[in-house]
């Protein structure tokens, strides 16, 4: 049946042929993968940088910075709310740090929900955007900006103007709406934003430190080197 129309030669029955065939195919598949990787690697890295920039610019509006958002990245060590070090992107305006953006995450209904949030120098939320999640389509995915404006309800909130008991969904006596049929998802996002603000507060000095552009440039360079 295989190789129809051609009488199957006897060497095909040998184990050596089978092994050669399998090895040859594995080599071919690996070669295709390597070639594909080499061809696409740079483009993918570029696209991902563009994506990162696009999501950063959603939480750090253009008006409040005059630097390239990917140029000043510092890393905060793991703290009370985070198990892993956090990368913080800093927005500069006229030599000052005007705002910072970093990723936060919490466990939702179906795995971690990762968001990026922008916080201005006063500790107010500039914006939050969900980057990745696996919540139920049609219910929990209303946290995406493309499917609803709920995520903008965090804007302008800070630890000062919103008390700890208000940092919850309404069902739990807090400030923020839940969705019909989905409470766990918004609860997780509220928690992650609240923890993000706490992280900001704890590290405020480090985050806003370099006032002169000279030192900030130095920090940038050393930080980028350690990132590589």
């Amino acid at each position, binding site marked *: *049946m295989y190789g*129809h129309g051609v009488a199957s030669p006897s060497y095909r029955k040998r184990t050596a042929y089978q092994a050669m065939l399998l090895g040859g195919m*594995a080599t071919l*598949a690996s070669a*295709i993968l390597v070639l594909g990787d080499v061809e*696409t690697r740079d483009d993918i890295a570029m696209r991902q940088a563009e*994506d990162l920039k696009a999501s950063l610019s959603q939480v750090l509006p253009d008006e409040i910075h005059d630097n390239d958002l990917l140029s000043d990245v510092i890393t905060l060590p793991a703290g009370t709310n985070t198990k892993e070090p956090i990368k913080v992107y800093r927005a500069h305006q006229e030599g000052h740090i005007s705002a910072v953006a970093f990723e936060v995450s919490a466990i939702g209904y179906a795995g971690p929900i990762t968001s990026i949030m922008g916080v201005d120098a006063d500790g107010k939320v500039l914006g939050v955007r969900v980057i990745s999640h696996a919540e139920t389509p049609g219910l929990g995915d209303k946290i995406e900006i*493309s499917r609803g404006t709920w995520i903008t309800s965090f804007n302008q909130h800070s630890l000062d103007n919103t008390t700890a008991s208000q940092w919850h969904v309404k069902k739990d006596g807090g400030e923020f709406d839940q969705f019909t049929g989905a409470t766990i998802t918004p609860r997780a996002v509220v928690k992650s934003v609240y923890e993000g603000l706490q992280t900001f507060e704890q590290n405020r000095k480090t985050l806003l430190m370099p006032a002169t552009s000279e030192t900030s440039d130095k920090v940038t360079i050393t930080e980028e080197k350690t990132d590589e």
Partner: protein
Amino acid sequence: MNDESPINYRRIMHDGLWDNNVVFSQLLALCPLLAVTGTATNGLGLGLASLVVMIISNMVVALFRGIITPEVRIPVFVLLIAAIVTVVDMMMNAWLHELHKVLGLFIPLIVTNCAILGRAESFASRNPIRAAVTDGFAMGVGFIIALVSLGAAREIIGAGTLFANASLLLGDSFRFLEITIIPDYRGFLLMALPPGGFLMMGFLMAGKRVLDVRKSKKAEVATSTPALEPGS
């Protein structure tokens, strides 16, 4: 599918689209199917990605069918399919990035689609390239039909909408597809979750059976004596 008979492309298309439909007749590919068909748009997304992989994998398998021996065919097919899916994923990520952001979620799911291995095994490995590509296309389109009909049925009952967010997948010119069937609908959670997928698939399969049985009855009536009353 006899080797000697000329290849009947009409038959291949009809098999893929209806008679031997991947989902409703072969009951393959249920894992990705139930996972993503919460909405018609998601179904369409997975369907399109699967169609591309199915055509390429059938083509490659048919190309190598002369040298692959029955003893090692399964690992070879798995290897080829996995490589194809990975390369398609990488190329889409690099060059069709906007589409990849929407479909990207579905591409790794294609590896779990046993229908692709099934077609490689039962069709592509014993047919010439053109027939194999046609079969991949027919099976892929049949899969899209199944995914979209299941997704649409679940979406209408589960959320009261149809093709919600289609513009995110296909671009703004397809916004007209987004319809709210039942305004102010409170939603029916069961249908959005995988168990609802199983239920709805059962209903759709039953519906297909009814149509098939009716069709074969009609054919029977037409060939039997015309003295019989219609509908008896």
